[in-house]
């Protein structure tokens, strides 16, 4: 197992958002994290990606403890994530965003920024265009400011940024929410392709069941901050407890 999370608990005031959550993910595996609103899925992702600091628990990646590390350090360790909502960033083009993502790959000493002044990045540009932007159908808008793009394409840009880091662990927070079903399925396809190519572990928080079912190798269901079920996609639909909390059936 590459990612091993145990006993992860985080409270906000008196509200327990995530309680004793455990999760294991192997390289090359896509795990779907589902559950009703407020189940703590995004909060859990935020704990893994360094945005929140849980009160208890451990999250180990290839044996290293991740908790307490900043997002920037995590990115250098190969942990990248996307966001539910995407920011509108003025003056930055699609390619700029991808380059920002790729910058995590450079292991730079301080003062390295000075070298950047004199370094050409045309090779990187070509690579990003071919490897990342082309598959996400962003190559034609690579030089456009992202605020001119549609919501769906901006989500693709956010994914491109995360992928440009060539992550080993990819955390996706509702990657297809707000997209048309056609766009959503295309995005899901890209995620599978990336997994195939990079062999990375993927955790995907998602509500759209068709996308989850067709993309994920394994599914974990959360409710009220805890894991209530874990299994293959087919098993999930059959489980009565999952149906009860998730679909509101008696």
């Amino acid at each position, binding site marked *: 197992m590459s990612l091993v999370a145990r006993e992860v608990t985080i409270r906000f005031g008196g509200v327990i958002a995530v309680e004793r959550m455990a999760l294991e993910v192997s390289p090359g595996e896509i795990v779907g994290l589902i559950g009703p609103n407020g189940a703590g899925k995004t909060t859990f992702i935020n704990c893994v990606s360094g945005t929140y600091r849980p009160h208890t628990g451990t999250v180990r990646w290839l044996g290293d403890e991740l908790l307490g590390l900043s997002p920037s350090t995590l990115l250098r360790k190969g942990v990248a994530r996307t966001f539910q909502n995407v920011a*509108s960033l003025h003056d930055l083009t699609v390619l700029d965003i991808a380059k920002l993502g790729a*910058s995590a790959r450079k292991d730079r000493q301080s003062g390295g920024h000075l070298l950047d002044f004199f370094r050409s990045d045309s090779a990187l540009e070509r690579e990003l265009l071919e490897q990342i932007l082309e598959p996400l159908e962003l190559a034609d808008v690579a030089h456009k400011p992202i605020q001119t793009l549609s919501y769906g394409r901006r989500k693709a840009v956010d994914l491109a940024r995360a992928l440009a880091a060539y992550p080993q662990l990819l955390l996706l927070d509702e990657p297809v929410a707000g997209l048309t079903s056609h766009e959503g399925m295309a995005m899901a396809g890209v995620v599978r392709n990336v997994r195939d190519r990079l062999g990375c572990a993927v955790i995907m928080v998602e509500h759209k069941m068709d996308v989850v079912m067709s993309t994920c190798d394994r599914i974990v269901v959360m409710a009220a901050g805890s894991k209530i079920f874990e299994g293959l996609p087919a098993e999930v639909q059959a489980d009565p407890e999952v149906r009860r909390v998730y679909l509101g059936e008696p």
Partner: protein
Amino acid sequence: MNTRHLVIAVAVALLMGALSLAFGRFGAYMVNAVAIAGIGALSLNLLIGYGGQISFAQGALLGVGAYTAGNISNAGGDGLLAILGAGVMGAIISALIGIPALRLRGLYFAIATLAAQAILEYLFKILDPITNGVSGLVIRPTTILGIPMTSDRSLVVPSLVILVIVWVAVSRLMRIDLGRSFLVLRESEIVAKGMGIDVAHAKILAFFASGFIAGLAGALAGFANRLASPEAFTLDLSADYIAMIIIGGLGTWTGPLIGAAFVVLLPEAIQRVGEAAGLSDILSPLRELAFGLLIILFLIFEPRGLTALLSRLKPRSLAVPAPGAVPATGESLPP
């Protein structure tokens, strides 16, 4: 893109150089003043326009540069050494001013820079061995690489050379990872953090780079004025620089220079028009008013400043994106 910027920068510098030759000593002084203000505005635009960190301490930072350069030069150091030393000192002080920015944001941080401005002004007055107190430090004409800088015309050369270097360097900076991370930082720290940008590191580097450039401008101002005095580096000067980058266009490449030229030359233009029309008694006091009014008008109607205004006048410019006035940031994480 970069080559284009280099060509433009060199062309502008050559044009300014030609103007300084064409209009005698006064012209040379004005060109020098525009170049120095341009460098200072590029510095502040880097911090505010690109990095999103509002600072009211620009005036004092220029002072740091002027005092540093004056002391090095008066002690017999070469002018170039003095200018670089001023840059380094400006960078260090600016980074120190930036430290509260790691904790404070927006308006709260802006207030902290106000305090920094006040503290530096006070230090200028009391650190007698370095600043010569309220009398001000008289800076003797310097020599740069062995060439004496005794006239206004000779000083135009280093100012224009530095202007070109800084202008192109800022353009380049915005095309490398560090500059791109400034742009994200400006929109939202939360987004920047989520993207894996080391926010603290990027912020301090923004202050460092901006402070270095401010130090250069301060050094050149010191050489031009031959005096570094506390009264020359007050909050008024900070306000002038903020006016320059707003009028020129926040976060644009040409804006700082256009704004600097505008702010430096407008009072003189009003004065001369007033004299020609025999109304100088009435028009002179209106100069300050005109500034305030212009800034308000720009903020309301053209937040991207003269740069946007000019490019709109340009007949073939249809490809200009229409950015909103206020950065509409989609927060990516729950609070």
